[in-house]
């Protein structure tokens, strides 16, 4: 195995008295696309929030050789982790263009930012046409494209993608997963949280199964697709 870009060990998160993550360990190598599957409420979004330092946690998170445990959230972004959250959290009253520009908030390299904006527009051509429109006026699928594009504008080494296909028309979902594949092929590592196991396993090289805050299975995507229990519960076959 390659040297891990992200190494999470024994991660524990409490929400008050409720235990959301109970000793989760996982790793993502540079350029790798890893999926985290699991039912609603298993702790998938909490895992990504803990990595972003948006929720406090115990255990260890090491990214690119540096511990993130005591890092402020904005420094995590500066270190190269960009989070495209569940529910998108767009700036609803700002234009699509401004949303994308805010993704590059911590960057000063104007020329490279302009190039990355071109990349995002190439990835999601509809966003170029919608540039001057308020984010709130877009369809759900288009908003998801803005959210992913905005996260890419931070030029991440690791992209955290939380449920990119929730509540989106089938046609746009296909476009979004095609884009996810392209992002990985361009060399960005992705940690993908997804309820749609079939789509996720289609793009991921490895996967983890998270249930009740614990990793109950891990392995290559092909092994997951052949696994009886995963097939029955998560693939519905």
């Amino acid at each position, binding site marked *: 195995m390659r040297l891990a870009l992200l190494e999470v060990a024994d991660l524990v998160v409490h929400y008050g008295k409720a235990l959301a993550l109970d000793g989760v360990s996982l790793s993502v190598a540079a350029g790798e696309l890893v999926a985290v599957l699991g039912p609603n409420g298993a702790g998938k979004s909490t895992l990504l929030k803990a990595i*972003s330092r948006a929720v406090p946690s115990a255990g260890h998170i090491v990214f690119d050789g540096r511990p993130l445990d005591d890092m*402020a959230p904005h420094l995590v972004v*500066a270190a190269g982790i960009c989070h495209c*959250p569940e529910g998108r*959290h767009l*700036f609803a009253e*700002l234009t699509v263009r401004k949303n994308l520009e*805010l993704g590059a908030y911590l960057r000063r390299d104007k020329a490279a930012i302009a190039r990355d904006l071109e990349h995002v527009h190439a990835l999601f051509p509809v966003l170029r046409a919608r540039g001057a429109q308020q984010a709130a006026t877009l369809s759900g699928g288009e908003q998801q494209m803005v959210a992913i594009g905005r996260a890419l504008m931070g030029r991440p080494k690791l992209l955290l993608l939380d449920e990119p296909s929730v509540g989106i028309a089938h046609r746009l979902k296909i476009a979004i997963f095609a884009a996810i594949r392209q992002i990985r092929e361009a060399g960005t590592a992705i940690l993908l949280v997804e309820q749609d196991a079939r789509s996720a396993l289609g793009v991921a090289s490895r996967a983890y199964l998270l249930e009740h805050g614990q990793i109950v299975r891990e392995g290559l995507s092909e092994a997951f697709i052949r696994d009886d229990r995963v097939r029955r519960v998560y693939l519905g076959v």
Partner: protein
Amino acid sequence: MLNILVYGAVTSAVYAMLAVGFTLIFGVARVLNLAHGAFYGLGAYSCYLLTGRLGWPLLPAALVAVLFVAAFGVAMERFLVRPLRHSALAVLMITIAVGLLFEQAMYLLFGSEARNVPAFSNATWSYAGLDVSGQRLLTLGFGIVIIGLLWLFINRTRLGSAILALSQDREGALYMGIPADRIYAVVMAISAAIAAAAGVLTAPFLTVQPTMDLLPMIKAFSIVIVGGLGSIPGSILAALLLGYSETIVAYAVSPAWTEIVSLVAVLLTLILRPAGLLGKRAAF
């Protein structure tokens, strides 16, 4: 008629200067800052201290007064509001405490009598039977310039984008790497500085005394309720509405009736349109 037009504009400008900062810190940091009137008062008193007691010329005194109040706002946010941010009620209480502290401190330091702050302009403009002091016109001009600059800052700068982002989606802003605490400090500085500027500008023609923070506080509060808490365009619209309504009432009925105008406007707004004229949702 011309009287109403000019005096209404001056009043509206002062109200807008008070309200934009109040609504800004609420919209961005969700802080209902009831010490906002104290910023206004502190601006006036700082200017009085520097000019009246220390003999400074007015212009540097005014600038230092505004900067001092901005620093005071930042310190208040850092040391009193931030540790209590988990509880909106605790934040509300601490800002009330700061407001009361201002009144007591001014009373102990400078006594209860009204103080004088020099005017930038002692000229009087006469036109078509209207007499208006240069200081009032200057206040109107400054108010327009300050609000224009604020608009440019928010819509045209990187820091302004961060302020907008934070006011619209805090979690989204967090994932962009926007450092919320630093932005709150910037917004508090701006909010306090604009209120202090209003205090410095109006001090020559209004009364500088320890309880001077109360009325501006009520006005700022009324305006943002009528305009919609958190909405800057809403607060400017409501400032014009209230500024002119009060001026019209003062001329048409009696100056004694002006203070009731904003209270009636607040009541009507809360009953008919709780979110305010341009607000997205009811804040309470």
